[in-house]
């Protein structure tokens, strides 16, 4: 059985695809999502095998949403679009699967056949939109807050999860792992548990011989691991 999630901002488009998938008895549609935010939550919770993902969606496009997923737990993605020449040519080039809306039965069957064969691993990093996070999705009780990178002071990994601390000192839980955030943002790794926004650093200080720490504009102190110190000093231009 292949579990699937349908992500499209138009209700009739979701309905049309769900109906088109009905004859395929080995496809189990877990849920439908109307935007990328809902989808991020469902993908984390349900871990579907495949996500049918519309590209044109409000606030966070399908491609941007991919950048917010952990590459280690990436579902198979089938892109959906009504018309997007640029995206389609990128999919063709990289052999990513896509469906044009309205979906024809033949074309859908081809896609399903590929899914059943569990084709090769997809590396979406070739799509420029998936490499850079413009904002970090953070979960609060009822909603997802999107923090712009210049609002971030530092990010800390704790036992309870990864927390983004904004410039006002508020903490936000995010589903993204620290190394994904390190890869897709310009934030700097200063410790096994910390990423820091260099623009928010006020001071580098040495409390004891051999140890170093950052003090942020907000007055918070972040440890710097001994192993990373030479690299950090080089990056900051300190000799």
């Amino acid at each position, binding site marked *: 059985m292949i579990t699937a999630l349908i992500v499209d*901002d*138009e209700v009739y488009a979701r*309905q049309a695809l769900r109906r088109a998938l009905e004859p395929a008895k080995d496809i189990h549609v877990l849920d439908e999502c109307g935007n990328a935010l809902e989808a991020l939550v469902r993908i984390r919770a349900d871990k579907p095998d495949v996500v049918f993902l519309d590209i*044109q969606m*409000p*606030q966070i496009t399908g491609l941007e949403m991919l950048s917010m997923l952990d590459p280690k737990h990436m579902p198979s993605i089938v892109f959906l679009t*009504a018309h997007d020449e640029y995206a389609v040519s990128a999919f063709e080039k990289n052999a990513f699967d896509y469906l044009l*809306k309205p979906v024809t039965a033949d074309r859908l069957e081809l896609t399903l056949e590929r899914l059943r064969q569990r084709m090769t691993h997809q590396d979406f990093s070739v799509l420029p939109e998936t490499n850079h996070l413009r904002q970090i999705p953070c979960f609060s009780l009822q909603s997802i807050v999107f923090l712009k990178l210049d609002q971030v002071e530092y990010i800390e990994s704790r036992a309870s999860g990864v927390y983004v601390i904004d410039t006002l000192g508020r903490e936000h839980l995010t589903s993204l792992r620290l190394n994904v955030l390190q890869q897709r943002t310009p934030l700097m790794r200063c410790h096994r548990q910390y990423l820091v926004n260099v623009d928010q650093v006020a001071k580098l200080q040495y409390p004891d011989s051999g140890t170093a720490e950052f003090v942020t504009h907000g007055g918070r102190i972040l440890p710097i691991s001994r192993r990373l110190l030479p690299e950090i000093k080089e990056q900051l231009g300190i000799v």
Partner: protein
Amino acid sequence: MDLHSVITLSVMLLQQMCVYLAVAYALSRTKLFIPLTRATIRWPHRLACYVIFTAFCIMGTLLGFPVVSGNAIANTPAIGAVLGGLLGGPIVGLAVGVTGGIHRYFLGGSFGLAAALDIVMQGLAGGFTHRYLIRRGKTRLLFSPLLAGGLTFISILLEMGIDLALSRPLPQALHIVALIVLPELIANTAGAAVFVKILLDRRDSLEQHSRAFSAKALEIAAHVDGVLRDGFDQENSMRVARIIYDQTGVGAVAITDCHKILAFIGIGADHHLPGTPITSPHTLQAIANNEVFFADGNEIPYECSLSPHCRLGSSLVIPLIGEEKQVIGTVKLYEPKTRIFSTINRTLGEGIAKLLSNQILAGRYERQKSLLLQSELKLLHAQINPHFLFNTLNTIIAVTHDDVPQARALLTDLAVYLRKNLKRPTEDVQLSDEIEHIDAYLRIQLARFGDRLSVEFDIPQPLLNVRLPAFTLQPLVENAIKHGTAQMIRPSRIRISASQDAHSVLLVVEDNAGLYDANGGGGLGMNIVDRRIKNRYGESFGLTMSCESNVVTRATVRIPLEAAS
């Protein structure tokens, strides 16, 4: 001393003065004198003033007559010195006086030193009078012949005083002064007055010339303004030719393109007919070589190429220049055989040709610009957004499944939308027609976005008859969907309203997304909406965008009320 010799000397000195003034008159016709025709302030002018009046000062000395065995000279250096000072100021006056004085001193005689000092004194007298008049703001008086004469008169009297004071022996000095005082007074006073009069005349003739010239040029420029913008054709050319003919007073005026006469007015209009091909070799040559051709009828003979009885005797042909310096026609001015071609009209002719060339160019440019706009628009609307079309079809397929009547309604809306999109963008439509177009479009979008979108119309009934260019509101609504609704997770609202104030009708499309990026520009569609209205109704109308981030984006179209009714 006898009266006879005084009179003889006076007459002789006056004769010399005639030679002196003849030289002054001759020089006044040259460019040398132009700096002297106004009160000099700038140093190059002062220098010219110094050189010229020093020359006249020395000439006045040399043209004199030695009296009493060469001890004194009855002469007229005073004019140069006084006028040098009067027109050039104290410094020039002093310089002229010193130079003239040194020259006189070396001619010697018992009066030598005194006469040298006289000239310096006269230069200064002129100079200080200059300064006095300038400070009082009486610059005009500098060119008064009466003042120049009077000042010279006084300075001659002073001169005699100095002579008597410095020259020895006194009896001889008295004798000499008695002999020369009357001749010098008469000759110098008259000479200075006439000299200034010559300058005045020169200035007036210069000014009259340029006044007549600029008056004509301005008159023509004002009258022909814009005529050729509407097209370089027979009708407009005729209007322009009429204006040139009236204003310049030449015998005849013609305007041609590269092949035929477009307009002809004046002498010879009976056989120089508009619409006929160009036959004049001069014109053909002017077109071929892009050069002004002038046949004065004297050195370069002019012969009408059409009729041997033509009364025209001289002709000026000036090419009109279009894009990339190509000749696009000519302007021709003629004078009859009985008149000479004035230089004013020659210069004017060339100026007119430049003016007309620019107008024709501007007109062509404008027409091309509006053509471009039309074609851009056509392109924009021939192209229905494929994203919209396929999404709509996808929606309809889904709806067909369980709501056939709604599917049928959506297909009808799509048909209406597509048909309205085939309207010619150049035509005017009623607001009601534009609303119908938008309505079909929005009903489809309502189905697509479901409860994420709500739409509100607020158009007062009377305004539904307002006329406006087709595709004025439609692109704004599409924009509100594309950059508003489609980007929103929370419910989106689009409101279309119309209102009027004293002078205009305001059409407003607003969405509650507030995502408009002023720096990103409005995109091609928005630009065209704005430019089209501005082109038609003027700069105070058109499209304005305003945005309150995340709250509202408002597109306001303003069109004139009179255009609406």
